[in-house]
């Protein structure tokens, strides 16, 4: 009996589920470029041995040749770590792992030293990681050299003490003092126990292994499932390094189980669909974005088997003799299914099953091919789980012939052909018709039918738009695009009704009940069946919100199975629509062009008041001269009448007062002159007040003296 850990993971099943959402191959060049991006050493070295190992392991699996670049620095680090007696257990383990890949130059002596050190640490290990690193290290040494005796004597005791950390639900505790159990610890524990079994000097007790298998099965009972069938182990424990997530936990468990299964001869009998679910989970992640996640994914996939090359193969071994059958073809959108029993041809060189001939009734459209796996050997059915029927969507596309395009304005509602004004549509392209069927190239190889099936359409086919479809089920969508570029109206609305071609051959647009615009065309499939659409557009006037003006018409004909979908501007029409009735919906608000809202504004500069108009300076000066003339006349008059000052008081005191009086008047006049030149009103008034009082006093004295003199003179 072979080892019974066999799960036939149908690559089909996994991949088909993925190809619904993915557009790349499960593990592909994208993974390689991602790995190179994510694992990029700084100055040729990685930060730690752990990271070095993860990078090397990922590169190795993906087949990336980068070893030589890293080798020198990594080996130096490995040798340092292994020679040093003070290095941490974890580093020793990581160094051995790196060495396992790089094969650095280390002699058996060095290995011996490390081995004895690991054995010592094993004897006083108390946490799961201590066991893991010690046992793992010993296993790695065993793989790298055969000279040293690595067998451990007290394997039973070690086995029991590791097992003691296990919980009833299949999970493991990290150490005896820690009460939290973890799923990824279970994976580590299983890997460690597998190491113990392989290193044990005597056979490990079968009852111990049986309980362990029970633990594994219980662990699988706690698996989480997605709706699409993907399963994963969730990690509930949040340790110091943060939430590890389901990816690392699942990866750890898968690798633990693989190691365990490899080391024991007992049957594990794991549920097949859960293993399939796990494979789905790892592939469904796509390309992880972090180095750690990528490592976990790749490591888990390697543990599950080499799924790099997409083949029908088992996860943990090569495929048994089997056959793949194409069972049924469904056409999407209809319940019809054609039952076919066609066995795919197996190509032993590439291990790919090829569908050589396409069933005759496959035309363009969306189909679902249902494949089934049949094991040739009835005995194998006991060991392999088959993922059921695998449904693969296949899109058969083709070039659709488009001709007889015509656009016409009908003058009457009846659309009498005689009254049409016809305009030919020129669609100047040459179509060839071919079928291709390589949508699933990477998974199921189907020979691409690229041979043209004839039917060439010459350029510039005039009249009547014809779109050709022969297809019972496929949906053809015709969209008429009306873009109003109004020349005489400010509104710019784009009203874009689309329509389906339900089965007749013209699209007409009624402007009112007298005139209509008719677009007619014919679609023909490669098999020459014609298809006649017809649609009235009475409701369109409301859609245009009764806005008259110039409308551009674009015709889009397309479908997912039509390879020559196109968008064709047809020209423009002037629509003179009736006034909107009161109840009509108002046109929606205009869309403002986002670019026009931004940008600098026009500059504004202030217009200043213009200064008052003044007469020329000469004129003012001339008038000044005229104004001064009377003064000179006055002076001349005084001179003429021989005016004198003989009445001046002769005695000192009155003369002084008279002098002060006149100089007072003079200074007031001078003050007025100063006021004009520089003084302000307040200073002037102050000075005027003082001068006024002084003037009153001296004026009174002087005038009374003059009056008394004159009275004396009269009386005498």
């Amino acid at each position, binding site marked *: 009996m072979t080892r019974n850990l066999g799960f036939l993971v149908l690559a089909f099943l996994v991949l088909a589920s993925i*190809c619904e959402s*993915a*557009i790349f191959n499960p593990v592909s060049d994208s993974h390689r470029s*991602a790995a190179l991006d994510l694992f990029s050493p700084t100055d040729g070295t990685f930060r730690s041995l752990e990271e070095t190992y993860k990078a090397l392991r990922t590169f190795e699996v993906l087949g990336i040749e980068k070893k030589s670049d890293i080798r020198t620095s990594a080996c130096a680090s490995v040798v340092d770590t292994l020679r040093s007696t003070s290095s941490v257990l974890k580093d020793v383990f990581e160094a051995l792992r790196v060495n396992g890949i790089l094969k650095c130059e280390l002699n058996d002596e060095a290995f011996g030293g490390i081995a004895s050190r690991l054995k010592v640490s094993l004897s006083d290990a108390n946490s799961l990681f201590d066991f893991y690193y010690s046992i793992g290290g010993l296993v790695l040494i065993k793989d790298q050299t055969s000279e040293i005796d690595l067998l451990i004597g007290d394997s039973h005791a070690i086995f029991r003490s590791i097992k003691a950390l296990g919980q009833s639900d299949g999970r493991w505790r990290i150490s005896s003092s820690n009460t939290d159990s973890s799923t990824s610890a279970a994976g580590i524990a299983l890997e460690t126990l597998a190491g113990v079994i392989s290193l044990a000097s005597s056979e490990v007790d079968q009852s111990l292994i049986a309980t362990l298998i029970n633990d594994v099965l219980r662990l699988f009972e706690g698996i989480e499932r997605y709706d699409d069938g993907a399963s994963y182990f969730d990690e509930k424990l949040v340790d110091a390094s943060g939430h590890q*997530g*389901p*990816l690392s936990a699942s990866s750890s468990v898968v690798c633990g189980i693989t190691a365990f299964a490899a080391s024991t001869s007992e049957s594990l009998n794991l549920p097949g669909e859960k293993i399939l679910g796990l494979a789905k989970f790892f592939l469904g*992640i*796509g*390309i*992880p*974005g972090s180095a750690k996640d990528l490592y976990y994914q790749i490591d888990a996939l390697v543990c599950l088997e080499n799924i790099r090359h997409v083949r029908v193969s088992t996860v943990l071994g090569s495929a048994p003799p089997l056959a793949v059958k194409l069972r049924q073809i469904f056409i999407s*959108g209809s319940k019809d299914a054609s039952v076919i029993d066609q066995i795919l041809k197996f190509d032993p060189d590439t291990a790919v099953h090829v569908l050589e001939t396409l069933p005759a009734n496959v035309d363009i459209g969306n189909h679902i091919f249902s494949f089934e796996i049949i094991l040739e050997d009835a005995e194998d059915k006991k060991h392999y789980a088959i993922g059921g029927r695998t449904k693969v969507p296949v899109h058969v596309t083709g070039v659709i012939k488009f001709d007889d395009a015509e656009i016409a304005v009908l003058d009457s509602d009846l659309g009498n052909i005689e009254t049409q004004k016809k305009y030919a549509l020129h669609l100047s392209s040459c179509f060839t018709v071919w079928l291709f069927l*390589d*949508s*699933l190239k*990477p998974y199921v190889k189907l020979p691409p039918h690229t041979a043209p099936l004839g039917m060439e359409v010459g350029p510039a086919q005039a009249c009547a738009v014809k779109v050709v479809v022969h297809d019972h089920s496929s*949906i053809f*969508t015709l*969209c008429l*695009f009306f*873009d109003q570029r109004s020349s005489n109206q400010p509104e710019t609305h784009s009203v*874009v009704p*689309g*329509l*389906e071609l339900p089965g007749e051959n013209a699209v007409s647009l009624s402007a009112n009940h007298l005139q209509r615009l008719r677009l007619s065309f014919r679609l023909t499939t490669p098999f020459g069946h014609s298809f006649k659409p017809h649609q009235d557009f009475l409701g369109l006037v409301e859609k245009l919100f009764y806005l008259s003006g110039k409308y551009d018409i674009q015709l*889009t004909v*397309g479908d*997912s199975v*039509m390879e020559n*979908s196109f968008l064709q501007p047809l020209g423009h029409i002037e629509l003179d629509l009736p006034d909107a009735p009161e109840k009509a919906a108002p046109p929606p*608000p205009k869309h403002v062009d*986002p*670019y026009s*809202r*931004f*940008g*600098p504004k*026009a*500059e*504004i*500069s*202030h217009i*200043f*008041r213009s200064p008052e108009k*003044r*007469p020329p*300076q000469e004129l*003012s000066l001339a*008038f000044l001269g005229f*104004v*001064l003339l009377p003064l000179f006349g*006055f002076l001349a008059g005084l001179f003429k009448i021989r005016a004198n*000052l*003989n009445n001046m008081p002769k005695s000192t005191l009155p003369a002084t007062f*008279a002098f002060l009086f*006149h100089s007072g008047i003079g200074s007031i*006049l001078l003050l*007025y002159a100063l006021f004009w030149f520089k003084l302000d009103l307040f200073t002037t008034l102050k000075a005027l007040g003082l001068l006024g009082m002084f003037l009153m006093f001296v004026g009174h004295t*002087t005038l009374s003296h003059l009056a008394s003199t004159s009275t004396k003179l009269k009386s005498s």
Partner: protein
Amino acid sequence: MVAAPQKTLTISLFITLNLISILPLLTFSFNPDEPTNRQILVLLDDLSLRSSHSIFFSSLQSRGFNLDFKLAQDPAISVKRYGQYLYDGLILFSPSTDRFGGSLDLEGVLDFVDSGHDLILAADSNASDLIRNIAAECGVDFDEDTSAVVIDHTGYAVSETEGDHSLIAADDFIQSGVILGSKTIEAPVIFKGIGHSLNPENSLVLKVLSASSSAYSANPTSKLSSPPSLTGTSISLVSVVQARNNARIMISGSLDMFSNRLFRSGVEKIGSLKKHGKSGNQQFATEISKWVFHERGHLKAVNLKHNKVGETGEPAIYRINDDLEFSVEIFEWSGASWVPYVADDVQVQFYMMSPYVLKTLSTNQKGLYHTSFKVPDVYGVFQFKVEYQRLGYTTLSLSKQSPVRPFKHNEYERFITTAFPYYGASFSTMIGFFIFSIVYLYNK
């Protein structure tokens, strides 16, 4: 006995001091003074999105953002504590969530944006009413038909597995270097999701990535029974909003657009001969997230100064017809530091009810903008206003009040030649009076 209350006091003081020391950890909206070390809450439908979209997240983390991942249903979600927001930004990658856990709801998200925080929202064909309503509040109306996705028969990305032409290769980007970066996005962006239209009444929302004119929004698996409601270039695939408080929002109809798978995938647009080894998604998502989180296009204006020509101090009041100089410095946040903003279209307004002067400022190419002009001959309370609204940039709205007075009475011209005849008349009369008074009194 007396010591007990004192002890209580000491403890409460101790707690208060501790709280004060925690306070700086609470964050506010984008703060020009503290632009780094920002917290972002990421709400996911499923934690596996963390790894399937990890390139996008790690690009944010590498730019100094602290991402706090939570399930959208997590009852511990809270964005606000004691009236302070705990996050600067919110990423809603949870299209199918009907209700958020914890205290967050539609109002909470809107309040979060209203207080100046940024939001990235991605929907897909499972978008829930909650997500649709949040988008609708931002001026984005997703197609009401819940089964509809964007289909484009002439602009789809060639794919080996996908046959319904709903994987769109979109390359109709907004022409804005500040939103999408100065480097043009060569490869088309792969989009798979639902389309939306912009609410015409919302003037703040902008279409960043729009569908081609042959696209329409419909259910790809069923026959069209009525014309699709969204068609052509009116379909927006990705839109952004910059609110009046400079909070920025990005709304995308596709969550897959940000996934590692589409970031790394090659793209070949149907009908185009060029096959790109890598889609434009990563560049697009990275650049637009830089914009959303204010790493680009965030302006600040400082040192707004004005003075009379020939002086340095800022006068309390200007007189009409004064010549004045105006200057302001504008800087842009580059993600790491403030760099001078260089443009030639910054304008200043001298404004009272309406602008009296509107002038474009000249720049020294180092962030300083200056100009000089004459104060209008109208007096009143004026404002210097800088209203700078450019596509993608935060709005600068500065104003500084400065009154303008007319001439004082002694500031008018004193010796007007035209008036000389009047002065001549007055003074000649005065001189005549002086002589007359002497002659009259003393003539014999």
